[in-house]
């Protein structure tokens, strides 16, 4: 399959999906074909590198060359520290460990969930409109989907340890469509970590989607750790729906990729709901990280809080376009949005478009965007204490990202992600 021919519907593995979903996929394929490629004048693609998203040259991922070594490589946590683990490689489930899950919790391949829990699946699978620009690519994702992770935590169930889901891509110019669908029932609680990894230093295309649905008073920590190869093109499309008094904290860490487009769309649907949106982006080489976000307040007394930190080295480039929208009924909204760009090189470029649309009154909204360089005083302080300048700069960058990790308000997760970050930054 190349991108210009019909995907999995005709490619032989379709028997895993129920017929209604296969029809759905055919429609999605038609939609993908009918939608035009994004243009310079499309506002959601302002500043974007349109050349990077011409995705014609990619192939359907073939079989995995060495599944055992990928499973062996999927061990960030000791097994006892996890509630469950799934490992996908080239959109095939190659490892399942669900021993630590409390009873009643479902952790299934998506196609199984579509068959066995059709109602729930239909209610939560890609139901919100893709509004931040990647409608075409989301349609391709839906049309091409082969599997993915389905997490359902029923009412009142609390999972203490994280669920970890690995998504590997293997093969030159391989394409994958990772999908994680998380549904939390009333007062349920869970932590889910998605890991996106390349098996080799190869070019690849990933169009990943995560749907996060939080019932009343539910609590979710979701982290996407993106470590695709430096040659990869990746789309990460999120939709989060938060019901009354529920609390979602989602962190996207972009540690790899040549071109990464992230779209995070939070719907604050219930009164008193809360969505914390975080991102850590150490950009180096010629990496481009293009992030669009939406904090859409439909209900009164909800809170959304966004903090994105970009550190730009070499000739890297970032785009942040965020929108806080307070709909007419959403009185007493608290909404915050902050993007900080730390410029580490003269060749780097940071574009920020923090937006507000306020249709209700009695709201507290602020947004801010800053771009600056390393603080000379801080550098001097450390160098005066014998820390070489390069290391001092690294420490400052680590501290800059540390303030985002702190916002997770989860010490275990902070420590775990801190280690990943340290490795990435070369400590």
């Amino acid at each position, binding site marked *: 399959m190349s991108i210009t021919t019909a995907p999995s519907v005709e490619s032989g593995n379709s028997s895993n999906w129920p017929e209604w979903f296969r029809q759905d996929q055919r429609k999605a394929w038609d939609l993908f074909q009918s939608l035009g490629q994004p243009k310079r*004048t*499309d*506002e959601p693609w*302002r*500043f974007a590198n349109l050349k990077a998203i011409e995705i014609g040259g990619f192939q359907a991922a073939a079989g995995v060359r060495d599944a055992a070594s990928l499973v062996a490589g999927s061990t960030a946590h000791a097994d006892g520290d996890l509630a469950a683990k799934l490992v996908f490689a080239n959109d095939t489930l190659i490892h399942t460990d669900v021993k630590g899950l409390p009873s009643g919790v479902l952790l299934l391949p998506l196609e199984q969930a579509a068959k066995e829990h059709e109602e729930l699946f239909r209610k939560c699978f890609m139901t919100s409109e893709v509004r931040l620009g990647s409608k075409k690519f989301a349609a391709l994702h839906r049309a091409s989907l082969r599997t993915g992770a389905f997490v359902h935590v029923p009412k009142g169930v609390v999972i203490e340890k994280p669920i970890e889901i690995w998504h590997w891509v293997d093969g030159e110019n391989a394409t994958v469509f990772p999908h994680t669908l998380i549904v939390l029932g009333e007062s349920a609680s869970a932590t889910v970590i998605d890991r996106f990894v390349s098996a080799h230093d190869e070019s690849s295309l990933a169009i990943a989607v995560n749907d996060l649905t939080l019932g009343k008073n539910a609590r979710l920590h979701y982290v996407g750790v993106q470590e695709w190869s430096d040659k990869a093109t990746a789309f990460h499309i999120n939709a989060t729906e938060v019901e009354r008094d529920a609390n979602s904290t989602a962190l996207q860490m972009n540690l790899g990729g040549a071109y990464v487009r992230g779209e995070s769309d939070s719907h604050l649907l219930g009164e008193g709901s809360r969505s914390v949106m975080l991102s850590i982006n150490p950009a180096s080489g010629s990496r481009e990280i293009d992030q669009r976000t939406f904090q859409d307040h439909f209900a009164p007394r909800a809170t959304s809080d966004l903090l994105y930190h970009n550190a730009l080295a070499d000739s890297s480039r970032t785009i942040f376009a965020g929108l806080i929208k307070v709909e*007419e009924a959403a*009185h007493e909204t608290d909404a915050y949005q902050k993007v900080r*760009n730390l*410029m*580490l*090189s*003269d*060749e*780097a*470029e*940071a*574009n*920020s*478009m*923090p*937006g*507000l*649309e*306020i*249709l*209700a*009154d*009695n*709201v*507290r*909204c*602020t*947004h*801010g*965007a*800053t*771009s*600056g*360089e*390393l603080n000379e005083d801080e550098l001097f302080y450390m160098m005066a204490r014998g820390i070489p300048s390069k290391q001092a700069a690294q420490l400052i960058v680590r501290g800059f990202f540390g303030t985002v990790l702190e916002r997770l308000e989860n010490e275990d997760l902070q420590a775990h992600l801190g280690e990943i970050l340290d490795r990435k930054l070369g400590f």
Partner: protein
Amino acid sequence: MSTETKPDIGIDRSVGDFRYEMDYAYDAGVGLTEATIDYISDVKGDPDWVRAFRKEGYRKFLEKPMPTNWATKDLDNIVFENIRYYLSQGQVPKRTWDEVPDDIKKTFERLGIPEQERKFLAGVEAQFDSEAAYSNIKAAVGEQGVIFVGSTEGLKEHPEIFKKWFGKVIPSGDNKFSALNSAVFSGGSFIYVPPGVKVKHPLQAYFRINAQNFGQFERTLIIADEGAEVMYMEGCTAPKFETATLHSAVVELVAMKGAKIQYITVQNWSSNVFNLVTKRGLAHEDAEIKWIDCNIGSRLTMKYPGVVMKGKGARGEVVSIALAGDGQHQDTGAKMIHAADNTTSNIISKSISLGTGRATYRGMVHVPKHLKGCKNNTECDALLINTNSRTDTYPAISVRGQGNAVQHEASVSQISAEQIFYMQQRGLSEAAAMSLAVNGFVNDLVQQFPMEYSVELKRLIDLEMEGSVG
């Protein structure tokens, strides 16, 4: 300069809301074709290069799409073929008030221009529909070599200065409306301040639309030569008509090395006017350009004054107040293009949305590669008065390289119930308390306006606030 000057300013809408039946000596008719442009060029006796410039502008106007991919769809309600592009009583501006035809004089007397001039202004130019009706510059300023004339006179009598900068800061193809203005421009001011001359008093212009379905397209070019300083103030009014009226000006400022230009606008268009204006300044080394912009009225205003800081150490500033009343959309902001080291820009924007009014801030800050020591500070504050009021903020900030500091902050707030309660406890009515709170919100900016404008602005805010409570 307080109470007795109030009626003279001409920014109170009730003062501006009148019109006279005019017999126009020159009327380009309705709609825009190449023939319209030839008509305008013939009537004005344009030199060939201006006629060619107009036609080029017309071609670009047709080419350019409406910017509705980012701007409001309300723009699609402008019917270009229904608009009258040129109307005038005669194209030579009069030098003394007595020479001005009585009916035009009546209009401007109601707006209070001659009284103004008598008081302290260095020069006044008043534009009525397409052409300057009256312009004068005090002898003292003229003796210093300051040129203050209409754009038509400027391009004919001072081509050597005019041509050098005309259309250079804002090329006709900059956007659809600057292209339209380039095609049909008429009127506006041309100012040249020679090196080292500091114009003590502000120069002032009034723009007024009197005819229905009319488009006003003035073109202003201000050049402050090395070390010169000038302050320019413009006021705008139009009576209320049933149908939409278009105002689409282009204003270009050029500040040579060490020069300073302040450009102050107080606009009070009636609520049928599409006000789509392109304003940009070019600041050379150590020069300073400051836009002070107050937007009240109009159906839709789209205006983003900009400064291109081309020389080292140049400074750009935009201070903006927008008040969007019921049914109005104020889409305003600023553009700051840093093009040299150690350039500094500052944007302060405050908006108030009343009733169903919508205030939008749209900004652009651009720091290209390999620049050092550039600083930008942007602050946008929005105040919402009613539950159905709306405000938006859409900044775009591009920074390349290190060694620069850029920060943007915005907030949205309401007048707190506690504040209002506190004032009511002390005997103020709710409406008076609201007015006071709104005036407090913009007070620090209003103080940057010349005093008579700031007094008037406060009064205007009080007027707009009337009936917005309860």
